[in-house]
Structures are given as C-alpha cells and as structure tokens.
C-alpha cells in the first residue's frame, strides 16, 4: 500500500447564505443570488483542485459542538433534511452523504493514542450540522466523495484558547499520521469564518448586497492580519496570534478547526492561495487553499 497523504487543505467557511445564493436543487429556499465574490472564490478553489485526485473529505466543523471530547461520525450513510436553526429562511437542504467510517474510526483511535478524549457517534438518526453540509456542498457539489466529520470540542469555553489550540494541534498531528498510514488521499476542510460578529438584523431581501459589509473596521483589520500571514506562509505566527485574534473578533476560530487544519498540514511555510475574502451578515470569511505539493523541500 502506498503512503496516504493530504492532497489539499482549505479554509472553507460555511455561511448558509452561499448555498442559498447558488439555488442548488437540494435547497428548498430560493434566491436572486448574492455574495458573488465568495461564491466565485469557491469556484476558484474547486478549479484549483480539478487536477487533484482525492478519496475522502475530512472536515472539522464548528457547528457540531461537543463538550466531553471530540466526536466522529460513525455511520456509513446519512440522508435527511438540514434546517439552519439561525437562518431557516435560507437553508433547508436535503442531504444524502456517505461517511468513510473506517478512516473516521482510525482518526478517532489515533487521537485517543495522542491522549485526547474521543467518541464515535453511531446513532443513525443523528442530523448532520449545516456547517458540514454547506462547506462540503460548496467544495464538492457532486457529493461523490465520502466524508469524515469531526466535532468541535469547546475547550476554549471550558478552559481557554491556549488549551483549545494545544488539543487541536494534537488532533491535527494524529489526523495526518492516520491519513498517511491509511494509504488514502484526503482533502481537509476547516469549516469556519474568521471574524464572527454578526449583524442582529437581516435585510428584507437577504441577498440585498447593498446591505452587506464587515460589522466593523477593527474586524476587517484583524482578518487582513491573519490572511496576510497565510499568504506569507507564516502559519506558526498565525497560530501564535490565534488566541488574541479569536478574543478580539469573537472569531469562529474558537472552534479549533483552523488550528487543527494548520497542524495537520505541518504548519506550512509555503504561500497559501487566497481565493476570496468577503463578508456574510457582517462576519469575515476567507476561502483559502494550501497545496502541500508547493512545500519547500
């Protein structure tokens, strides 16, 4: 068996607005468009992967929140309706997906060997969170690859951002080792926004782009700081700044997804490709790809 590898890592945020704006047949709500810069960014991300073969998507999701350990999907198929609890007017999506349970269990076991608390989710009635569905849809609308879905352990709330980061760095290392041992080619997704202060009201027409902007300039400056570090390949510095960034912009990086991804990628020192930056209901969202084939040897 040849050695498995991570073929691409991506920051792939999950505002349901982007699926709503695309009008896929799976989504009941229909729109007139909107958020094109981000949707075109996802298009560029998909194009950047068009020549890259992969077997599985491994996603870390902020919207499956667990407090006792990190959980992994452990059922082979899920088919149901996902309704966003915050934006149900925009996202009512009929999903039908497959899980790579073998790889999921292997990462679970690898994380346990690293000293992390872990648990398999084996209830077939479980409803997949809308974040996972949104990011996976936007990266792979054909849904022709199985996924591994990892919950967000909320250690940032129960301890602090430093503990969260330490755990996610361990989880990322375990993920990489297991993928390498599995012989599989994996696409890794960190399903989160950057700055995350929402507007608390919605325009009458949700896709009215005259109403869309970052909630405040301070958030924008922090987002640019982090994105520039990604572009410069300074991911260790980015991770060092993550607790302050998270605190200052109530960023969705609190979920640990981005720290997990950067760790799994081995703290890349090569340039990330920023496909887009844009805001959704005031939050800052970047679509960013890391291609390990660009790593300096």
């Amino acid at each position, binding site marked *: 068996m040849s050695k498995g590898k991570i073929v691409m890592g991506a920051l792939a945020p999950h505002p349901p607005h982007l699926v709503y704006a695309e009008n896929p047949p799976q989504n009941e709500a229909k729109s007139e468009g909107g958020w094109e810069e981000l949707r075109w960014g996802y298009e560029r991300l998909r194009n950047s992967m068009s020549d890259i073969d992969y077997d599985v998507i491994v996603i870390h999701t902020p919207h*499956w*929140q*667990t*407090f*006792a*350990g990190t*959980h992994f999907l452990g059922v082979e198929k899920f088919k149901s*309706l996902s*309704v966003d*609890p*915050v*934006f*149900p*007017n925009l996202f*009512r999506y009929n999903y039908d997906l497959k899980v790579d349970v073998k790889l999921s269990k292997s990462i679970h076991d690898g994380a346990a060997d690293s000293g992390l*608390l872990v*648990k398999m*989710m*084996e*209830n077939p*009635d*479980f*409803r997949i*969170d809308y974040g996972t569905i949104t990011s996976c849809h936007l990266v792979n609308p054909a849904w022709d690859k199985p996924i591994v879905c990892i*919950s967000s352990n*909320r*250690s940032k*709330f*129960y301890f602090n951002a430093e503990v969260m980061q330490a755990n996610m760095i361990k989880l990322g290392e375990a993920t990489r080792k297991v993928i390498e041992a599995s012989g599989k080619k994996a696409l890794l997704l960190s399903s989160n926004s950057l700055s995350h202060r*929402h*507007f*608390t*009201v*919605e325009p009458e027409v949700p896709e009215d782009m005259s109403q869309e902007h970052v909630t405040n300039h301070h958030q924008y400056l922090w987002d640019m700081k982090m994105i520039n570090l990604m572009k410069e390949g300074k991911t260790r510095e980015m991770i060092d700044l993550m607790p302050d960034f998270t605190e200052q912009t109530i960023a969705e990086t609190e979920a640990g997804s981005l720290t997990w991804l950067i760790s799994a990628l081995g703290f890349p020192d090569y340039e990330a490709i920023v496909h887009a930056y844009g805001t959704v*209901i005031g939050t800052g969202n970047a679509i960013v790809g890391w291609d390990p084939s660009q790593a300096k040897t």
Partner: protein
Amino acid sequence: MIDTNVPKGILVPGMPQTLLCPEKNEGWQRVRDAYDKARGEIEKTDAEVIVIYSTFWPSILGHQIQAFPEPEWTHVDDEFHDLGSISYKFRMDPEFAELAVAKCKERGLHARTISYFGFPIDTGSVVALKLLNPDNRLPAVIVSSNMYANRAETIVLGKSVRDAIDSSGKKAAVVIVSALSNRLHTTPIEPVDDKIHSLKDNEWNLKFLEYLEKGRLEDVSQLSRQFHDEARVPKVVSFKPFWVMASIMGQNNLYEGNILAYEPIWGTGAVVATMTPAEDTAGDLEYDEDDPEFYKGDREVLDFYDQPEIGPLEDEDGD
C-alpha cells in the same frame, strides 16, 4: 393583587438524561419525578398555553418564536447521542406566536416567527415539552435566546411576551429551560458518580435556591450578572433566563417558591422549581438595575446621542 394571567412559572433543566435514562442515577430520577410534579402543578392551573424560553436555542437575528403548527421529528442530541433518539410531535400555537412577535416589534425588538417543517427544535425544549406536556394537552410556543442580547433587550423581550399573554386573553404557564451552574464534566463519568462540577458552583446554586424558595424571583433576576460571573461557563454574553422569567411574571418577589429538585446532571446544576403568584411573600425589593420599556437597538460605547442631558444651570442664586 395576585397575578392570574401567568398562574405558574417553572424552571426546568434541558439535559436529555432526565427523559432518556433517569434510572441510571438516583438524582436524575428525582429530577424526572420533579418534572412529573411540575406537570401536575400546571394541570391544576387554568393555563391555556405554555410559553417556553429555551437557553438551548440560540438566535442571532433578534428573537425567534416557533410557530410551526405540529413540528414532528426524531431528535438526537449533539453530545449525548449514545443515549438514544427522541421522537416527538408537538402542538404549537401559531396565533399566539404571531401575536408575541407583533408585541416584540411594538417594543422595538427585531423578532420573527419560525414555521418550517424539520426545524431543529433544541434538546431542552424537546425534553421540557415531552415531560411537562406529554399528550400535547396545551399548545405551546418556544422563544429563542438571542446570543448577543444583554439585560435591557432581554427584559424588553419578557415584557413583550407578557404583553402578548395579556392581550391574547389566554392564561399562560411560563417554562424556562436552563441549568443553574452549567459546567459539564468534560471527561467521561459513570452516571452513578455524577456530582456538581465544583463546590463553588454548588454554593452559588444553593444561594439561588434559597432565594427561589422564598419566591424572590426579581431578586434572583437582579443577581443574574453576578451568577454569570461566578457559576457559568460564559458561552453567551450573560445569564438571561431569570431576566425573562421575572419580566414575564411581573418583576416582583410575590411568589410561592417550590423547589422540586436540585441535582447534578453531568456536572450541571439541574433544578426543577415552580413559582406561583402569591399575595404577600418576601416582598422586599432591591432595584439596582434599570427597568427599560423599549429596546432602542445596539449602542456603541462612544455613542453620545442619547446620553442624559445635564440641563440648564440654575441661575436663581447666581451660582
């Protein structure tokens, strides 16, 4: 004068153990038994609708109120999925939900009804409705907990719901779904080994129970910020359930408090308590905080436009 429009207020925990496996821990079973007693207390009133405020349902866009007539699903908790699935079919009161939204808007709040098949009703509301209203004897509405709302907005939300109750002509039982201390065990435990996560959490819970037992609901409401600092994992900006409960029930201390259970559920402080309006109980109020009537939207720290005016200097005595 005794308040008759809200004849009962109830605090319940939303953890699924109470519904799915109470037999695994004696304390969980006592909470389950207390739920049954609370249901009995509701049944003895003339309440015609159940109004639930659930801290398990966070919202961002103002305040959401469940209005789908008969929501039906098989629910699985994100954390405790291994305890099993919960099938439910509830009966909502869409007309009341619309009225509550209208009253919210009259007081300056951003609010809307939610009426979609498959909407993910939160674990706390599912547990509360299954145990307090198992046969859907009463219709219900569920009100979300806005994650950004602080005290003024939450007090106004409670008053808006109260406006809806008063103008609907329906009597309401108010159910608040929340733990007191909310720190879960983050490592596996055997159910029989469950305990309140820390002594400090336990002490603050007991302090609140002492107030609740005396019917001092408004005093508990006024202490919410302190409780948030002392005994809550700060997942949201503040501890809101008693702000809502007190503002719906009249912002006073005139209740008979009945603590039906206080037990740990996975480390959290799980309380079933009922508040029944009474003629004369604790009575003494300490109003430390503002009592807003309208919500004027988010204000930035440096906004000066609505600062209190100093007014003209007095000039009679030449000073």
